[in-house]
């Protein structure tokens, strides 16, 4: 997994609550058996005017000029600014893969849906929860001029605005440690192989029907 330590990047605003994973990556793209290549279809239904499908070349489709990602001002954005309950809906990790494949490294919102939040950490995408007021301030500052960039420091747990002020955010110690070091979760868990075996031995004597 890619490490996340510090990141400075252009902000793209996604000004609506409850952005769901169906919107982030529509279901027709879930038929892929791979992890990569979802970026061109990130927010597909909003990004293009005509329907998309894995069999259709995106280059032949009509771009929705009103959608924020299509505004050249946001080309190369790596920080997505969202509203409450970001990433709600299905468990599809494809939503996170689409964001990272597109180049997004962090999402900032007042709240996230649980599964999306979890999935983000598995893929080096940093979800940052700030208060409603802080997020509102970022939206306003972003709207005031182009080229709005934020500096994120995971070690210090801060988001710094261009003017220099900064907000701090909370993060689990374990998650932070894994992200900072880009560690593989499975490898970490397998260090506890003996504990897992011991649990199974005890549990299967207590509830043998669970181990058929």
């Amino acid at each position, binding site marked *: 997994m890619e490490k996340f330590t510090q990141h400075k990047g252009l902000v793209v605003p996604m000004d609506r609550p409850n952005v769901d994973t169906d919107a982030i990556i529509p279901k027709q793209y879930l038929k892929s*058996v791979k992890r990569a290549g979802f970026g061109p279809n990130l927010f597909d239904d909003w990004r293009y005017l005509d329907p998309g499908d894995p069999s259709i070349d995106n280059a032949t489709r009509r771009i929705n000029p009103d959608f924020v990602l299509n505004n050249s001002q946001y080309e190369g954005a790596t920080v997505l600014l969202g509203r409450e309950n970001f990433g709600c809906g299905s468990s599809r990790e494809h939503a996170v893969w689409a964001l990272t494949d597109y180049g997004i490294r962090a999402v900032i919102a007042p709240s996230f849906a649980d599964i999306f939040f979890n999935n983000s950490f598995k893929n080096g995408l940093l979800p940052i929860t700030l208060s409603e007021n802080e997020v509102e301030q970022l939206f306003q500052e972003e709207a005031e001029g182009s080229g709005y960039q934020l500096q994120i420091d995971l070690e210090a747990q801060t988001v710094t605005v261009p003017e220099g002020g900064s907000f701090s955010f909370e993060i689990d110690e374990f998650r932070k440690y894994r992200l900072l070091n880009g560690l593989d979760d499975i490898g970490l868990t397998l260090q506890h192989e003996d504990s897992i075996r011991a649990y199974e031995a005890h549990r299967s004597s207590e509830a043998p029907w669970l181990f058929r």
Partner: protein
Amino acid sequence: MAGKTLYDKLWDAHVVRSEEDGSSLLYIDRQLLHEVTSPQAFEGLRLAGRKPWRVSASLAVPDHNVPTTERELGIVDPVARTQVETLDRNADEFGITEFKMGDIRQGIVHVIGPEQGATLPGMTIVCGDSHTSTHGALGALAFGIGTSEVEHVLATQCLVQKKSKSMLVRINGSVGTGVTGKDIVLSIIGKIGTAGGTGYAIEFAGEAIEELSVEGRMTVCNMAIEAGARAGMVAVDQKTIEYVKGRPYAPSEEQWPQAVEAWQELHSDADALFDYVVEFDGATIAPQVTWGTSPEMVVSIEDKVPNPDSEIDDVKRRGMEKALAYMGLDADTPIDSIAVDKVFVGSCTNSRIEDLREAAEVVKGRKIASNVKQVLIVPGSGLIKEQAESEGLDRVFVDAGFEWRDPGCSMCLAMNADRLEERERCASTSNRNFESRQGLNSRTHLVSPAMAVAAAVTGHFIDVRELVGGGD
């Protein structure tokens, strides 16, 4: 010391070890797998040279992408076919039991788990699918995970988890006739909102929940995720135990008494403390219909489409306006004057035998309305289909002009050929009314099976109580 909640009991019984930061390594008893969220997990295992930790803990089934007609032709869409074939190959290679497409036991993953007894009280159950919360109806801790976690469970039979807070949603008193589990859960979501349960594991309780069948409880727990909660659950009672008895994966006869004894403990203690408690009065719940693009945008059939002008919160008002524009609805339109183009009865929320019986009860002797273009009835599994046919339910539907299909997710998410055209309006028994969920720019109204077919035979939403029983 206060007693334990059901959630506490399930959690404590599965902790392999606790970390200093409050997270735990949690043992997973059962993992259900389907074709959409598992290929990358198996690929990851293979790349790392790992093997599944305990193959008997997994059960696989293709459901999202399977066709619901002319199965003998196979899957026409080559991309979808590859995905289903990939699941077949992975299950075969790693020795995991799979109910393949031609198997009578094939069906929607959340329907076949309980049906087979692969979902048992007291278990921890995961699946790469958010509606895994369904299985909590049997007194299990069940939640959806992402693909990286699917791989993690395959490789270690464990997950690193932080315990959620606990919420008790109590529905006091009985609900009226014609009011189902679907209406109960939609009305709960309408009240607490789609993020109301975020960070919580919800236990549903109270007379109305106790009076529901186990299948009805599955409908309620299924949509816990729509309230933002990863897990929903209901305490074990005599109904749960009877439901499980005799199912293929249920405990053997020798182990049965021991299992039942353990399951009797699976309820919150009387003095257990919850982080949050909400109570509703069951008698006030009427059949529900969603009007917008989020499950919390729901009103009762007796109501009107809400007016954004009366919403003071800016973000919410804009959300409502957007939703109304998308849905092609005017504020203040009476719900029962909204006409539908298509009707879908199916999905892991409402495709079990009782759902089909309830729907057939309303349909009997009636015909599809002239303005309704298509009605799909999609049973949740091959076994449910067979059972329904033995009861003659399929005849009732076909005689009414409906289509009787093979089991799968179908138009719940429209990954296969079953989908709505642009701007078509659908009464659907599924769980999500997000934009384009059932087809690009399609319009979904979530309802119960009885309400869905009531719309199919009258052409518009109607209080099903006027059609059967309750009315005069």
